[in-house]
């Protein structure tokens, strides 16, 4: 994937994620329209590909206002990933050379890689994760399970031990997917299934839409590295 293609695909996926988020917000309190109507309009322009530099700058300013309005992220990591991707897109449009654009997108790809690897690293260092207890706690008393029926999964320690190790190994081994194009595509496929499962079980639907916005940067970086 060329750098130009990666930038354009990133814009498209990010725009779709922002449209989805904006529509959700617009279905709620009317006071939020002042933030999310402009965001929706700019996201549509980004999707179409009109004046993308100015659109990205506008979206970044709105993102800052949204962070201020909610005193931080509204939806945790998914909002932070959105700001990161948007910031990198702005920089990629602003920097004066292709080499600097490459640095910006390499940073985005690195952060995406770290988002999996570091999450696995902090888990595997925790004995509760290694024993499966942490995931049992998530189902037993955390706010995340979307139904009471899912809480009964806490009583299936073998299943949750297996899932805990599957998640940790996937996250820790994710950087190895850069070794070849087929492994990267397979890794990104597994990542999508992982985000889909989180969305179904815990309602984290926004992660499912925003994380793929960083995938083009990873696909480009791998192509770039293999071309050296």
């Amino acid at each position: 994937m060329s750098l130009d293609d990666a930038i354009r695909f990133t814009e498209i996926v990010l725009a779709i994620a922002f449209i989805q988020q904006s529509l959700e917000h617009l279905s709620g309190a009317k006071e939020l329209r002042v933030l999310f109507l402009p965001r929706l309009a700019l996201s549509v322009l980004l999707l179409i590909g009109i004046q993308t530099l100015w659109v990205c700058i506008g979206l970044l300013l709105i993102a800052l206002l949204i962070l201020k309005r909610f005193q931080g992220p509204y939806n945790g990591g998914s909002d932070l990933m959105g700001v990161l991707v948007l910031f990198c897109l702005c920089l990629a449009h602003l920097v004066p050379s292709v080499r600097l654009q490459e640095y910006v997108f390499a940073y985005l790809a690195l952060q995406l890689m770290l988002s999996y690897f570091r999450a696995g690293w902090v888990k595997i260092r925790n004995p509760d994760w290694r024993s499966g207890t942490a995931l049992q706690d998530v189902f037993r008393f955390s706010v995340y399970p979307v139904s009471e029926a899912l809480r009964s999964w806490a009583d299936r320690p073998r299943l949750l031990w297996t899932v805990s190790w599957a998640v940790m190994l996937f996250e820790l081994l994710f950087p190895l997917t850069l070794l070849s194009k087929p492994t990267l595509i397979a890794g990104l496929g597994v990542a999508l299934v992982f985000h889909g499962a989180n969305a179904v079980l815990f309602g984290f639907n926004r992660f499912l839409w925003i994380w793929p916005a960083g995938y083009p940067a990873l696909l480009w970086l791998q192509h770039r590295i293999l071309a050296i």
Partner: protein
Amino acid sequence: MLHALKLCLPALFPSWRFFDVIGPSPRLEYVLLGAADEIRDQWEEFRPRPALLPVGTMLLRLFWNPGWNESLFVATCVERLIQDPSEDRGREILNRLRAELERGSADLAVTPFLRFRLIFVSREGADLRTDIAFVSPVERVSGRAAA
């Protein structure tokens, strides 16, 4: 804007420590009151999760899930209010609770007042323990301050 830029820094240099430790889990509960001086102890959970969610609904929520995302945000507000108390954070919780009650089935003419409390559920050995971290003063459901 400087404050917003400060809030932006974790996005530019993220820590990516998802679910590293499963700490005490926040809950928001409320009680409706008929009078400002009434004392009741029948606390109800804000937006209790359904007993069972059909697979079709789970899949639909991949695309459309504003209510659940708001519930997660309220849980975040509860954590933030306890970690770093401020009037704005308390008002955010109260406003979302009021909006939910005004949409709900309770007869607010009969119970025009409310209190809310913030609790944390955690594991202690094999059991769960519940700690009350904050109980609000009496507030009007309609949005005006209680007398």
